[in-house]
């Protein structure tokens, strides 16, 4: 667990977290999620599969005695899958007291994006991917897709299943 970075949300004020995002990438695309949801980042760990769950839920992991489910973001976003390596990370997010691990290829950096540099996504919400995009940020002429964490775990998945 050498690449564990714990972000202590308790100590940081809500204010100082505003406009700060943790970014990660799949190949060309860069995604980011609000840092206030992130509790920690851990390396990939042995995953215990659970039956009867959608394919993007890879199973459960043991996070220091706490059992949390992990979601493969590549499968979730319908990207071609690739094997996990030592750069693969699990971003642990805490949304409305539910902890979930997000498996991503690697974690890039913590960015500050000012409100004026964020534009709303185009109004067609058809793509699987777009549904989870809250906004599009620009940093140094790079385009960053900002994820809507709450929606990521929302009940919409149920519709998808049925």
């Amino acid at each position: 667990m050498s690449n564990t970075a714990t972000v202590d949300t308790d100590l940081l004020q809500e204010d100082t977290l505003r406009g700060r995002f943790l970014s990660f990438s799949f190949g060309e695309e860069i995604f980011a999620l609000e840092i206030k949801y992130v509790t920690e980042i851990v390396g990939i760990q042995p995953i215990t599969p659970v039956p009867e769950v959608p394919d993007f839920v890879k199973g459960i992991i043991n996070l220091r005695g706490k059992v949390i489910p992990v979601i493969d973001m590549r499968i979730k976003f319908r990207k071609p899958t690739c094997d996990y390596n030592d750069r693969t990370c699990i971003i642990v997010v805490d949304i409305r007291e539910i902890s979930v691990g997000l498996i991503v290829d690697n974690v890039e950096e913590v960015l500050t994006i000012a409100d004026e540099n964020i534009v709303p996504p185009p109004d067609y919400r058809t793509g699987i991917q777009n549904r989870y995009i809250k906004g599009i940020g620009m940093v140094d002429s790079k385009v960053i897709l900002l994820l809507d964490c709450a929606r990521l775990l929302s009940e919409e998945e149920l519709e998808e299943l049925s």
Partner: protein
Amino acid sequence: MPDNKQMDSYIEMFIFEANQLTEQLESILLESEENQNISEENINEIFRIMHTIKGSAAMMSFSDISNIAHTLEDLFSFIREKKPVIDVSDTCDKVFKVLDYIRYQIELLANGKEVQKLDEALAQTIRSYVEQIKSNNAAKAAEKTKPAGKEKPAEEAGEPEKAAGKAGAKTAQYKATVFFDDFCSLLSARAFMVINRLGEHCTNITNFPELNNSDNTVGYIMQNGLEINFESSLTPEEIKDIIEDITDVKTAVVQLMGSIEKKEEAEEEPPAEKAQPQAESAESKEPAEARAAAEYREPAGDKARPNVKQNIISVNINKLDKLINIVGEIVISESMVINNPDLEGMSLENFSKSAMQLRKLTDELQDLVLSVRMIPVEMIFSKMHRIVRDMGKKLEKEVNLEIIGEDTEVDKNVLDNLSDPLMHLIRNSMDHGIEPRDERIKNGKSPVGRITLEAKNTGGEVIITVSDDGRGLDKQKILDKARDKGLLKGENLTDQEIFNLILLPGFSTKEKVTEFSGRGVGMDVVKQNVEKVGGNIFVDSEQGKGTTMTIRLPLTLAIIDGMMVKVGENVYIIPTQSISQCIKPSQGSVFSDTQGRDMIIVRGSCYAITKLQTLFNIEGAVTDYSKGVIIMTEYNGRTVCLFADKLMGQQPVVVKSLPEYLNKFNSKETGIGGCTILGDGSISLILDIAEIANK
């Protein structure tokens, strides 16, 4: 004045205390009623309980509770002193009524509601009852009681009257030093009560140290006592009594500091002047005496009622849950350290020794933590006495409740879910089971019915039975009813199956709905509650002889004994409790039926095989039956054969529920009951045999 938070802690304490006292009172009353005699010891005890409730209720300004408690206190002090002839069951009835009122108020308080006004009718009944006893007694022993009878009311009204009488008298300046019991809980709250109580009689109260909740203050008061300066018209003895009346106060030293200079009074009241030096001289002896007396009294009081508070603390169950989790993690981390791959192949003699020591300690810790959550079933069994009593009176049936094995311990969570089902079973037995007196005599049974409530520990589980010697279940009636309601699925049911029909929702054989049972929401709720904590319920009955309900419960929900089985790369846990046997199938013993389902014949019976790999969609598992193992499990009389690659051994596991996020998927319905973390840190899923069997 205390702020809200402080007030809350007083209320909490009040509720805790009052709950203890009412429980104590109830058991005394039940005992007295059974013996048809209130022993002197018990009279004292009831008096003491009422006195304490009165005191603490008054302190919290719940005047209605305090008033009614006072009336009863008065009654029992009268009974204690004058020993009138009383009707025990009638008296107990009255006290029960008051007890119920107080309980209800406490419940309201506990739920954050306001206390209700005392029902005037109840107060009136009690009061007139007290009067009646008194006048009866007076009439009986007119000669003797006359002076005493006079004395009594005077004593009753003692405090206010004296206070009133002295109102015009001189006020004096006092200094009181109050010492508290060494282990007194919530010391600052008690101190506040002292001052509050004094406020009723005294003026100009100042105290040192200032009351705040800091440890310093508490420490100071423990060591040096609480110093209070005030003015009052009462005598030092009276003040001392008032203070020492308060719970947890060990001693109070009251010193007269001098009278208040009020010119016109000072001159014209020589008697008071005279009294003062007297008081003072008495006072100088007082501290030593009082302390000696208090120390004398202390152990005596302890004997009468072992002070529960000092040995038992109440702890929030959430804290215990957390503790169990942490201990579970420690056990896991320990084995992660000891079996660390970095150490492999090294010979580390000292390390192994220390590791062994550590393992021993963690094992002990684990056992201890689990035992903390275990509570004797006595807690809920004793409640049943009351139900049997109340219903017996109402239904005019005389029933003896026999309790066996009340010291059997079960997990707190299990116990919490057991109270309602048991209550219901007892009610059912009382209402439907036990016949009316005449019918019993006609059938040659003892006129007094018997209900037996028994708990026993059989190692892995706790078995609780409720049995009565009543009329038993009528099979034909059950069958007819079930057919009427469309609950009957097959024909040719065994007796056991017929009896278990009454556990189905919407089944109630009683034609008339009574106050106690028969709404048809009974038995199925009982069943649900029992199953919620992983238990089972069975009904057995013999017509004319009685009915027995058996509840089987797991000892604890937190830890189970599990068999680890391997399927492909995954390890699953099957609760050992539900395994009946494991079979290594020989070549050819397994065959398929026409629909391609695999079967096995074991000792002449044929069972379908459930392959865990197909159930959970696992690749790379053993498919050849002769290379794997079949585990026969049993649930509710149904046998399920599971096929796995191999057995990995048996060990106790800490049960954790699956993460909340996964609840919306179907894992639970597939037969996953939870998960656990194994010694190497990996997670293993626990199978829920009940779910698999119900498929």
